[in-house]
C-alpha cells in the first residue's frame, strides 16, 4: 500500500510542475551526429557534395536575424537568405536546384554581415 501511495504522490508532484519545465521537448532540436557542432556557434552541412538539397546546422550564439549566403568561385554572391533563428542548433536546408553544377562557399553571417561560419559545397545536380 505504501508503494502505491508513493507512486501516486510522484504522479501528483509531476502533474503540479510548471509546464515550462517539462514542455521544451518540442523545442529541443535533435541534432544528428553528422551535423553536431562542438563550438558555441558555426555552420555545418550534412554532405559537401549536394544534389537537390542538403541539411545544414547553423549553431548560433543568440536568437536573432542572420543571413545564409552562397558565393561562387569568384566570391560573388549568388544567393542570400535572411532568417530569424534561435540560439543554439537550427537544422535547416540548403536547396541547390537553381544553382549550376559548380563549387560554392556557404556562409553564415549575422545581420551585419559578420561571418559566423563558413564551409564549401559542391553542387552536383
Amino acid at each position, binding site marked *: 500500500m505504501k508503494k502505491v501511495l508513493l507512486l501516486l504522490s510522484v504522479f501528483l508532484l509531476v502533474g503540479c510542475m510548471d509546464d515550462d519545465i517539462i514542455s521544451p521537448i518540442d523545442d529541443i532540436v535533435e541534432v544528428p551526429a553528422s551535423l553536431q557542432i562542438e563550438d558555441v556557434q558555426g555552420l555545418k552541412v550534412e554532405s559537401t557534395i549536394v544534389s537537390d*538539397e542538403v541539411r*545544414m546546422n547553423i549553431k548560433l550564439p543568440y536568437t536573432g536575424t542572420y*543571413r*545564409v549566403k*552562397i558565393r561562387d*568561385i*569568384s566570391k*560573388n*554572391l*549568388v*544567393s*542570400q*537568405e*535572411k*532568417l530569424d533563428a534561435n540560439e543554439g542548433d537550427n537544422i*535547416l*536546408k*540548403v*536547396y*541547390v*536546384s*537553381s*544553382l*549550376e553544377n559548380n563549387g560554392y562557399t556557404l556562409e553564415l553571417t549575422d545581420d551585419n*554581415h559578420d561571418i559566423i561560419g563558413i564551409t564549401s559545397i559542391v553542387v552536383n545536380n
Partner: protein
Amino acid sequence: MKKILLLLVSVLCTLNVFGQTDAKLDYSAVNTVTKVGDTLIVKLQYFEGKDANNTAIEPTLYQFDFQYNNKLLNKISTTWQPSSTSAQKAINSWNGYKFSIDSQKNQTDFDGQYVSWLSGDASYGSDSDWSVERVTYQDTDALEDGQEFVKYEFIIKDKANTNYSNYDDILNANWANYKKSDNTQVGATGQSTLASLGSIEGGDAGNVTLNILTNIIDDNIGDGTHFTYNIYNKSDIGSGNQPNEGASIVASGTYDASGQAVVTGLENDVEYFVWNWADGSKDYMDNVVTVSDLALVFAEAIGAGSTPNGTSTTFDYYIQTFIANIFHDEAFDGNIDFQDSYEILAYLQGVTSNNTTYITYKDRAVQTGGNESTFGTIDSNGSYFAGIDATFKPTDSNKSFNFVHALMGDVNFSHSWEPDTEGTAIPASTQTNASAARMSMAAGSKFSGTAEEANLDLTSELKNGLVEFTIGSEVEEMIGAQFNIIYDKTRLVLDNVIFDTGNTMTNFSNHIEEDGKINIGSFDQNFEATVKTGTPYKLIFVPIVQLQNTSGLITFKVNEGVKADGTQIKFIME
C-alpha cells in the same frame, strides 16, 4: 738565256695542262614546280671534255651514280634519251642508302670519287631518307656534246612530318665513271647538287592551332569547350561570309577549356574560313543582352543613327554598330534607330516581337567574329564585313591563328570580344554629340570599362508562409537596372512582382516559367528619371512544398545598373 727558255717551256706545259677540260655530268630541272604534288622532271646530261690539244675526248662507257631524297621526291619514271640502237643501257636503283664522299677530294671530282669508291675511301651507308640511282650507258661511239642520258620524273612530296624544312638539297651526283674504249678513265665533274626548288607551296600543314578569344572565357562565364569550329575552303564562302550551298566542311571540332584547338588535315598555302560557334543552349545566353546594352542602343538611336566613319555616334567601336543593329531588313543597313532600341526593350519585357531580330538569347545565339587582328575594322567603303572576316592561311612559318567571337545585341561586349587592335576604335574627335539627351551620355560605355561601385541587398525570406525576394537599393542616379533571377520551380511558384521604382520609370519583367527564370528591371529612355531607392523590386513566391527556410531557392545572375552618363554600376553585395 737557258733560264728564259726553261721558263717558257714550263709556261707552255702549264698551259697545256690547264687546257684540258673534264667531261661533265650535268643535271638540272626541266620544268618549274611550285607546289606539293607537282611533277619535277630532271634531265641528266653529258658534256664532252677536251684533251690538251683541245680535241674532244670520246668515252664509250658512261656510268654514274646519283642520289635523291626519297622523303621529298617520289620517283615515278625514267626515260632514256639517246636514240642509238646499238647502245647497252641499264638503270639500277637502291633505296635506303646515301653516299659518303672521300673527303680528301672535291665532291664534284666525280671520277676521283669513283676511284675512291672502288678503293673504299668513299662508300654507301644506310640512310632511309635517300635512294641511289645508277645509270650505265655503253656504245661503240661516243655521245655527242650535250646529249641527254635520261630524264627522271619525280612527284614533289610534302615536307610535313619530315626532318626537312625546305627543298634545297634533294638530288646530287655521287660519282661518274666515263671511260674511253681503251679503258682510259676520263675526268668528270659537274655541279654539287640540283638547284634549289625554292618555295614549294601546299602540303599537309600539320598541326594548326586556333585560339578563340571571348569574354565568355576570360570572365569565367563559360569555358572554351562551349565553342566549336567549322572550317571551310575560302572558295566555298559566299556573301555575308556564309558557306555556299553544298559547301563541305574541311575540318570541325571543339575547342579545349582554354579556348584552343589543334586542327589537322589542312594544307599549307590554302585559304580557309572558320566559323566559330558558341553553344547557344547555355543558360548564360539569356544574360547576353541586358539593360546596359539597351542604354547604349537608346543613346545611339537618340543621335539619329551613326555612320561608319564615326560621325555622330556615341559608340567607341565601329563594330558596335554592327552588333547593335539587331533589327534591319534582309541586308544589314548599319542604321541604329529607335526600332533597334525598342526591340531590345520588348525583348527585356518578354514581349514577342512580330519582327525578325538579331538579339541573342538562349537557344538563339546570333553569332559573329573574325580574326583578332582585323575584327571590328571597316574598309575604305565603310563596310563592316571587312572586320568580321575569319579567313586564314597556314604556311610554313605561320600555323597559329587567333579568332574572336561576338554575339549580336551584346553592344557592351559582356559576352563578346572587345576589339583591341588599331583601326577598331572610333576616333574621339568624330564622336559628335547630337542632341540634348545625348549630351549627357558619355561616348559609349563598355562592359570592362569604367564602372562605379554601389551596395545592394538581395535577400530571400520566409514570411507568413510565402517566400519574399527583395532587392534593396540605396543607389542613386540609376536610370536603368536589371536583375536576372532563377528560382527553384520545383518548390516555388511566382505569385507577384511588385515594382516601387518611381512613377516615370519603364519597368519590365520577363517570366520564363518553364525555366524558372524571371528577369526584372527598369529603364528611363529619356535618361532623366532614376530608380527609386528603398525596395524598388519585390518578388512574391508561393511554396508548393513545406519549407523551413529558403537558402538557395532563389539565385541571381545578372545584376547591373547604368547611370545617365552611360557609366555602368557594379553592384557590391556583401
